[in-house]
C-alpha cells in the first residue's frame, strides 16, 4: 500500500545516503590491498600488503605522526583548560556582559580556519618582533604556533561540551565543600572536577581529534613541524600512492574500533544499571540458554568488538604469511605485454603517419601539432601528470623491483632485517 511504498523509498534513500557516506571510505580501504601502483579498486590486480610496509618506512609520515601527537597533547591541555575556564566564567559573568562574552568565545568556530591560521601567524610574529626575539625563538616555532592556533577554536568546542555538563552542576556542591572547610582549589579538585570528568574526557578526545585532523589552520602555522595531516595533504597534492590508502585503512579501522568499543562500554554501563535496578534482570541475563561471558551478555556492540578483534588478528596473521610475488609477477608480465602491444601499435601509427606525411605536401606547420598530439594519445591527457602514463608506470615498477624482492611480507616488512639494508 501507500505506507509500504513510503517505507521502501525511505530505505532506498537511506541506502543511497549511507552509500555516499561510507562508500568512499570502503573503496579507499580496498585500494590499500590492490597491488596497482595507483590507488584504485578496479581493475583488481593482486592482493598485497606491501603498501603497509611502504607506509611504515616513510620517514615523513612517521615524523608527521610524532608531531601530530605532540601538538595534539599540547592542544588538549591548553584548549580543555581554556574551555573549562571559559565555561565556568560563562556561568558567573555579569548578565549584561554575557551575550557579548558568549559571542566572543563562540566566534572562533565560525571564523574560517584559514583566517585563524593567518591571524595567529601574523600576531605572534609581531609579538616576537616586539620582544626583540629572533626568527628561531619559541614564539615563532611551528609547535607553539600550531598549538596556539588550533586551541583558539578547539577551546570553543571544548567549552560547548563542558558547559553542557556544567549546566547540570549545582554550584551549592562547591559551596558545601567550602563550608566544610575546603579551600577553593580543594573544592574544585575534589567536588567539581570529579563531576566534570566525563565531559572533560569527551572534550579531550574531541580536542585531540580536531587537532589531529586540522589542516586549514595548521597549514599556515606548522613551520618546521609538519603534522600528519600536512604531510598527507602534500602527498595527496603531489601524486598519490596506495600507501595513503593503507594509512587511511588503519585510521578507519582504529576509528571503528574506538566507536564500537565506546558503544560496548555504554551498553555495559546500561546493563549494569539495569541489573542494579532489579534482581530479576540479573537472573534473566545470567540464566540464559547459552552461557556467554558476562561482558558479552546482551551486548551486541561488545560481540561486534570481539569479532573485529579476531578479524584484525586474522588479517595481520595472513599478511605476515602471505606473499603476492607470483601474482605481481603475472600482472607485470601481462602489463608488459599490453605495453609492448601499445608501443607497437603506436609505432605502427607513427609509421603510417610518416608515410602519409611523405606522401602529402611537405608543410612544416603541419608536422608540429601532429607531433605534439602523438604522445597525448599515448594516454597522458589526464591532468595528473605522468601518473596515468602506462609507460611511466612500468618504468617505476622496474626501478622498484629489487626492493620488493627483499620485502614481500606486508606488515612483516617492518621487522624484516633485510628491509633495513635494502633501503
Amino acid at each position, binding site marked *: 500500500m501507500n505506507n509500504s511504498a513510503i517505507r521502501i523509498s525511505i530505505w532506498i*534513500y537511506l541506502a543511497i545516503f*549511507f552509500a*555516499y*557516506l*561510507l562508500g*568512499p*571510505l570502503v*573503496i*579507499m580501504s580496498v585500494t590499500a590491498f590492490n597491488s596497482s601502483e*595507483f590507488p*584504485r*579498486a*578496479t581493475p583488481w590486480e593482486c592482493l598485497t600488503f606491501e603498501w603497509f610496509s611502504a607506509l611504515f618506512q616513510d620517514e615523513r609520515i612517521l615524523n608527521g605522526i610524532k608531531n601530530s601527537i605532540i601538538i595534539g597533547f599540547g592542544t588538549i591541555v591548553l584548549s580543555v*583548560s*581554556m574551555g573549562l*575556564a*571559559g565555561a565556568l*566564567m560563562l556561568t558567573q559573568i*555579569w548578565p549584561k556582559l554575557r*551575550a557579548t562574552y*558568549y559571542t*566572543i568565545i*563562540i*566566534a*572562533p*568556530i*565560525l571564523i*574560517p580556519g*584559514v*583566517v585563524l591560521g*593567518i*591571524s*595567529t601567524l*601574523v*600576531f605572534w610574529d609581531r609579538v616576537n618582533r616586539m620582544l626583540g626575539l629572533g626568527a628561531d625563538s619559541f614564539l615563532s616555532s611551528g609547535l607553539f604556533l600550531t598549538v*596556539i592556533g588550533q*586551541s*583558539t577554536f578547539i*577551546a570553543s568546542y571544548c567549552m*560547548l561540551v563542558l558547559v553542557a555538563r556544567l549546566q547540570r552542576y549545582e554550584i551549592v556542591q562547591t559551596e558545601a565543600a567550602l563550608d566544610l572547610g575546603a579551600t*577553593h582549589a580543594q573544592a574544585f579538585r575534589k567536588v567539581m572536577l570529579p563531576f566534570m570528568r566525563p565531559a572533560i574526557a569527551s572534550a579531550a578526545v574531541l580536542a585531540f581529534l580536531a587537532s*589531529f*585532523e586540522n*589542516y*586549514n589552520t595548521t597549514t*599556515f602555522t606548522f613551520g618546521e613541524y609538519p603534522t600528519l*595531516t600536512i604531510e*598527507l*595533504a602534500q602527498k*595527496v597534492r603531489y601524486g*598519490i600512492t596506495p600507501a*595513503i*590508502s593503507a594509512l*587511511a585503512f588503519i585510521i*578507519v579501522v582504529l*576509528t571503528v574500533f574506538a*566507536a564500537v568499543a565506546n558503544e560496548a562500554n555504554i551498553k555495559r554501563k546500561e546493563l549494569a544499571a539495569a541489573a542494579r535496578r532489579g534482581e530479576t534482570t540479573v537472573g534473566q541475563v545470567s540464566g540464559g540458554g547459552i552461557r556467554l561471558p558476562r561482558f558479552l551478555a546482551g551486548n551486541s556492540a561488545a560481540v561486534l568488538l570481539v569479532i573485529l578483534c579476531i578479524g584484525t588478528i586474522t588479517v595481520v596473521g595472513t599478511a605476515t604469511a602471505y606473499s603476492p610475488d607470483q601474482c605481481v609477477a603475472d600482472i607485470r608480465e601481462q602489463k608488459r605485454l599490453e605495453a609492448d602491444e601499445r608501443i607497437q601499435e603506436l609505432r605502427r601509427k607513427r609509421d603510417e603517419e610518416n608515410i602519409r606525411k611523405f606522401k602529402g605536401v611537405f608543410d612544416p606547420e603541419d608536422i608540429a601539432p601532429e607531433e605534439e598530439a602523438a604522445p597525448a594519445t599515448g594516454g597522458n591527457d589526464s*591532468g*595528473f601528470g605522468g601518473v*596515468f602514463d602506462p609507460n611511466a608506470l612500468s618504468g617505476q615498477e622496474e626501478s622498484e623491483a629489487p626492493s620488493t624482492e627483499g620485502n614481500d611480507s606486508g606488515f612483516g616488512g617492518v621487522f624484516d632485517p633485510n628491509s633495513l639494508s635494502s633501503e
Partner: protein
Amino acid sequence: MPGFLKEFFNRNGIGMGSLMLGLVLFWTIGLIILPQLSILDFSFRPNLPPPEYGGPKDVYTLENYRYLVFGPEGGGQDYNSVDLRVFFRTLVAAVCVTLFNLILCYPIAYYLGQNKGNHMRIFALMLIIPYWINEILRAFALRIIFGESGVLNTVLMGLGVFDTPFDFIRNDIALYAGLGYAYILLMIFPIYNVIESLDRNQIEAARDMGASWPMIHKRVVIPYAKPGISSGCTMVFMLSAGALAAPQILGGPSSLWFTQLIYQQFNDNNDWPQGAAYAIVLLAVCILFVLAVMRMFKVNMGDIGK
C-alpha cells in the same frame, strides 16, 4: 578593587580565580581579539621586508583591498577579473553546496530524529565514523572514486553511459561532492537535535486533521526545526567557503578556491599583507552571511553552535 572583581575572587578564591581569569583573558584577548585586530591592521599595510617595519614606508594604505577589485597597478585591466571571479565563484559554490547538503540531510535528520530503536544507534555510529576520519583522507577517498580510472568512471563506462572517461575533477564535480561530503554531519546534527525534541503528537495531530506530508513538513516540522536548519546552514557555508584541503585535492587545475588565493599570497608570493586583506574579505563575507541567515530565520547567536 572594583566590587564585581572582589565578588569574583570571593567566589572562586584568589588562586583559582586568578587562574580562571588568566586563562579566559588569554583566550579571549590573546588568542581571539588581538590576532584578529592584528591581521586587520596588517591588511592595511604595504608588503615590506622586516627591516623596514615601522620605517617611513610603513604607512596605512588601501592598496591591498584595491588590488582585489582593480588588479595590479598598470595591469591594463579595469578589474582584477581573475581574483574577483574566484571570489564570487567560491561564494556561489559554497551556497550551492549548503543547499545541496540541506536537501540531502533534512530527510535523514528527520528520520533519525523521529524514530527510536536500536538501529538508530548504528545509524548514528555510521554517521559519526566518517567524520572522525581525516579531512584529507576523505578528500583522497573521493579523488580515488572520481579519478579518471576511478570506480565511478569504470562503472559508468561499464554501463555504457560514457565511452571515454569523464573528467569529474576538471569539471569541479568532485570538488562539490567532496565539500558536500565533508560537512554532512554538521548539517545533520543541529537539525536532528531540534527535530528530536519535536513532540510526535504534533505530527500525529496534523495528520489527523488531514494534512499531507509536504504540508506537515512545511507547516509543522520546518518551522520548528528552523534554529537547527539555520545553524547547520551557517556551519556548512562557513566551512565550505573557508575550505582549503578539498579544493587543493579535488579542485581542477585551472579553477581556484578563494582560500587557495590566500594560501598562495602567503606561501608562494610571500605577500602577507595582501593575504591578510583577502582573509579579512573572506571573514567579513562570512560574518555578513551569518548575520543574514540569523536575520532571515530570526534566530540568535545562542542557537548557533549548539
